[in-house]
């Protein structure tokens, strides 16, 4: 792999950029691998990367039915934060956020991590109490957040109208080291690093069956033939239930569409990320100048990667009150992704009823921020059989009633 650097750019500039290579190999499937990861999105690629980097396991294939990073990795609003209420969540999300800080250097690939700060708006008295509680919990967990008053919110984000009649801003939970990153670059950077370690990233390879012998996984059937493996990781977000069905077990997951949209590009006007959970509106400005708006989920099971129009209308209508300038903007694009939602809104990183199959799913509406931490923890789980970061996120928590309840903590009306 050629190292990307200012010198490489200068050298290539002298010879008409003829020396750049493909960032990752277009691999053909081999007959057998030590580990197969299904799903070449952020979480799958990160899992493979840390298997190689932390545990030296490099005989790995990452299978993708579509194209690399074409699922939710390419469909989110790129928000990164770790201000969760429960200890196990704070641990894995903060691990993730801290890995984002040095990801560009670690991968030698610019993921454009921008720790511009995230405000979660408190627009009801209930949210004020909830976020104060979260700020106290975060202090104990070592996650740097603070509860700020409305005047400080206005100072951080002057384009806001904090006196709106329906949704006044009463304060906010501020995480100064939260922010955004370039979502595609995260997938591309991991893919390049994985390929460099000798792993095969295989696109357009859909898994059609899970082969088992004596309650143990021995491989997968795919649209490009059978491939053997010793261990299998399922990291496919919205399609987790579908894959689990192939392997013969069920998951406490429902798949729904979550959508987002962007406006036409405008001059820089907002240098923080604002999340308005009460109205399901999430807003930031991309480096291109587009206002990136995340909306709410549709209320019913869905695999279509489209969202309902009335949800866009709802989100934008509510946001316009707090951000009056948005009313003049034209919207450029809208898209949807299929998110995998669990009952307690916490992820599942777990062994499964089939030996040597591991599953990483249930990140629901907030998976992008968790990519590096999730990969780190999943790699440890797959290599060693357990990880302190995943202990609380096992499938057995639904039998035992030991939930990691982030649905109430998020303060979002689900």
């Amino acid at each position, binding site marked *: 792999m050629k190292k990307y650097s200012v010198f490489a750019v200068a050298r290539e500039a002298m010879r008409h950029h003829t020396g750049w290579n493909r960032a990752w190999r277009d691999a053909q499937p081999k007959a057998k691998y030590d580990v197969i990861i299904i799903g070449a999105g952020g979480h799958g690629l990160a899992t493979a990367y840390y298997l190689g980097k932390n545990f030296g396991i490099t005989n790995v294939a990452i299978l993708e039915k579509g194209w690399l990073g074409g699922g939710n990795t390419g469909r989110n609003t790129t928000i990164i934060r770790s201000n969760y209420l429960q200890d196990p969540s704070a641990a894995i999300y903060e691990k993730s956020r801290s890995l984002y800080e040095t990801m560009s250097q670690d991968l030698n690939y610019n993921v454009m991590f921008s720790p511009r700060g995230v405000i979660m708006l408190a627009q009801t008295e209930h949210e004020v109490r909830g976020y104060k509680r979260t700020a106290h919990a975060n202090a104990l967990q070592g996650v740097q957040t603070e509860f700020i008053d409305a005047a400080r919110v206005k100072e951080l984000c002057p384009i806001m109208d904090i006196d709106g009649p329906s949704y006044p801003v009463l304060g906010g939970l501020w995480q100064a080291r939260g922010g955004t990153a370039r979502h595609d670059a995260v997938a591309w950077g991991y893919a390049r690093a994985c390929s460099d370690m000798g792993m095969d990233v295989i696109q357009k390879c859909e898994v059609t069956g899970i082969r088992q012998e004596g309650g143990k996984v021995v491989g997968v059937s795919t649209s490009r033939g059978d491939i053997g493996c010793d261990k299998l990781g399922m990291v496919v977000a919205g*399609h987790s*239930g*579908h894959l689990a069905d192939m392997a013969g077990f*069920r*998951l*406490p*997951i*429902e*798949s729904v569409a979550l959508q987002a949209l962007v406006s036409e590009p405008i001059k820089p006007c907002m240098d923080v990320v604002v999340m308005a959970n009460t109205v399901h509106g999430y807003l930031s400005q991309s480096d291109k100048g587009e206002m990136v708006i995340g909306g709410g989920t549709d*209320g*019913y*099971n*869905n*695999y*279509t990667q489209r969202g*309902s*129009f*009335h949800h866009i209308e709802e989100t934008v209508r509510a946001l316009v009150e707090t951000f009056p300038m948005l009313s003049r903007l034209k919207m450029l694009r809208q898209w949807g992704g299929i998110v995998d939602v669990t*009952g307690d809104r916490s992820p599942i990183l777990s062994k499964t009823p089939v030996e040597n199959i591991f599953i990483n799913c249930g990140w629901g509406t907030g998976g992008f921020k968790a990519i590096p931490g999730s990969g780190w923890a999943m790699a440890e789980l797959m290599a060693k059989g357990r990880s302190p970061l995943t202990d609380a996120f096992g499938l057995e928590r*639904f*039998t035992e009633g030991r939930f990691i309840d982030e649905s109430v903590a998020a303060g979002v009306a689900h």
Partner: protein
Amino acid sequence: MLTIHCPNCGVTAEETEFHAHGEAHLKRFGPGSSEDDFESYLFMRKNPKGVHFERWRHQYGCGKWFHVARCTTTLEIFGSYSAQTTEPPKEIINHIENRRPDWNATEAPK
């Protein structure tokens, strides 16, 4: 946007008038059941890619509950039927079989 028919009041309207409430025909397990059955009743949902039977409520209309058979990959609605039943009526099953010849009718709730 879905167009849904309410079998209770006979109104056909677009989806904002209704609210979805997840999988229909769940079999209840309570005290005395096994842990697996109880967990399954509480959390394990079919979440199929394809034909799905689900509960809806005519939230901003008559307020009553009913069931809908719908495809989760195309959003096609096969039909609505009364909630006062433990399994989908024959005409709904027949209609789904016509529209989805490769669908296995034994997967329908019993």
